[in-house]
């Protein structure tokens, strides 16, 4: 029994790494999503092209390859990343590319009449975006952002391949040391599921809070 509690300790440490990766990856993904999502709506061709290239490239290539590239190839051009840095970078850029399209779609879903009201009260482009369009678009983005965050959580498992001691990595350790497959993998299955539940619950309550007073009635 004492033996098992030691192994659970290992898995809990792995859970902390997974949580850390998910949080840091989500922050990077969120930043990239807004940069690229707004970039795709830019007036300037160069910015639109850059944003589109980023989105298509990171959606169109495998996250495994992106991770290996960040960890194994970047050192050749003089950039050496720790496994954690490489993991956050690959996860954030990958999920950010998907979320960028969510940002763009949500902004475009806000009706023309809101833009016209902004013009009529003489708000500048950025003021209108910041104070009128984005606050409304954010509510549209939230449910899909929740999906993206759960995808990111699950994708963190790939970092075990670059020797980062996350949940999946620790489960492998426990399995190789005890020979037991059922217990470690069932345990991390439950933990992943629990973490995903926390994310969906968090996003839902955020959504409820932001939707207060907005009834979707014509205004």
């Amino acid at each position, binding site marked *: 029994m004492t033996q098992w509690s030691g192994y659970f300790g290992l898995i809990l440490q792995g859970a902390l790494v997974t949580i850390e990766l998910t949080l840091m990856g989500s922050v990077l993904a969120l930043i990239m999503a807004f940069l690229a999502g707004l970039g795709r709506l830019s007036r300037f061709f160069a910015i639109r092209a850059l944003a589109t290239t980023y989105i298509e490239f990171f959606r169109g290539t495998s996250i495994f390859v992106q991770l290996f590239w960040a960890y194994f190839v970047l050192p050749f051009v003089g950039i050496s990343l720790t496994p954690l840095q490489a993991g956050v970078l690959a996860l954030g850029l990958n999920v950010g590319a998907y979320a960028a399209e969510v940002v763009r779609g949500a902004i475009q879903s806000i009706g023309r009449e809101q833009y*016209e009201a902004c013009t*009529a009260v*003489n708000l500048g482009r950025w*003021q209108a975006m910041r104070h009128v369009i984005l606050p*409304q678009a954010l509510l549209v983005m939230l449910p899909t952002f929740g999906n993206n965050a759960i995808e990111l959580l699950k994708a963190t498992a790939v970092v075990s391949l670059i020797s980062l001691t996350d949940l999946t990595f620790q489960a492998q350790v426990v399995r190789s040391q005890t020979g037991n497959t059922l217990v470690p993998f069932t345990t991390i299955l439950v933990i992943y599921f629990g973490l995903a539940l926390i994310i969906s619950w968090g996003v839902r309550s955020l959504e409820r809070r932001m939707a207060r*007073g*907005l009834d*979707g009635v014509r*205004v």
Partner: protein
Amino acid sequence: MSAPIIKIDAISKSFGTFKVLDGLSMQVMPREKLALIGPSGSGKTTILRILMTLERIDSGHIQIDGEQLYHMERNGQLLPADERHLARMRQKIGMVFQLFNLFPHKSVIDNVTLAPILTKGMPRAAAEKRAMELLDMVGMADKAKAMPAQLSGGQKQRVAIARALALQPRIMLFDEVTSALDPELVEEVLNVLWRLCSETDMTMLLVTHEMGFAHDFADRVLFFDRGKIVEEGKPDEIFRNPKQERTQAFLKKIIAAGHRV
């Protein structure tokens, strides 16, 4: 006789192959109250939208208060206006929309204070004090903290009017502001327009199907059809004794549809 505050000179505007405005010219004097009437698609709403810079013109010139709206004078040359010029010109103009277009995520008072704080750098306290005065004038002071979704159509429209007034425009454009309202809510909005009409010296352009109100409100009525002004004159002349066949036909149709004149 002072100079016109709005001078529209031979403007044309097409949407695709549909020519909405066709070489239209007109002038509006300061403090004048104008009613624009006519069948839908006649171009009356497009004029307001062009004045608010929501649509661009294909050709022609517009002067607001002696200054070009869509052009800038640089070294004696007329260049297309840039965003900064447009922003400066927009300060003179306010608009109220048929569908209110309030900001749904902001409370009533925040709808009114947002633009003065952002575009005029007004301190929040001063902006709120002014907003409360305006909300009081439109009878909405007790709803200052409410969200737009909690209001009736007539209440929303009164807030929208306060929002436009908060920027102290010299010209106010009203685009069918009662058309989306239930009949019993029309009057509360028209009452506010009455107060503005009699208590302020703003120039007001009103696109409306409320012929009775247009008659009482306007100094001058313009009848539009197919992108041109077919007939204009004092309300009594236009409504009681229209000279053009098309004006007569239009008014007949409107009366048949149950609008009072």
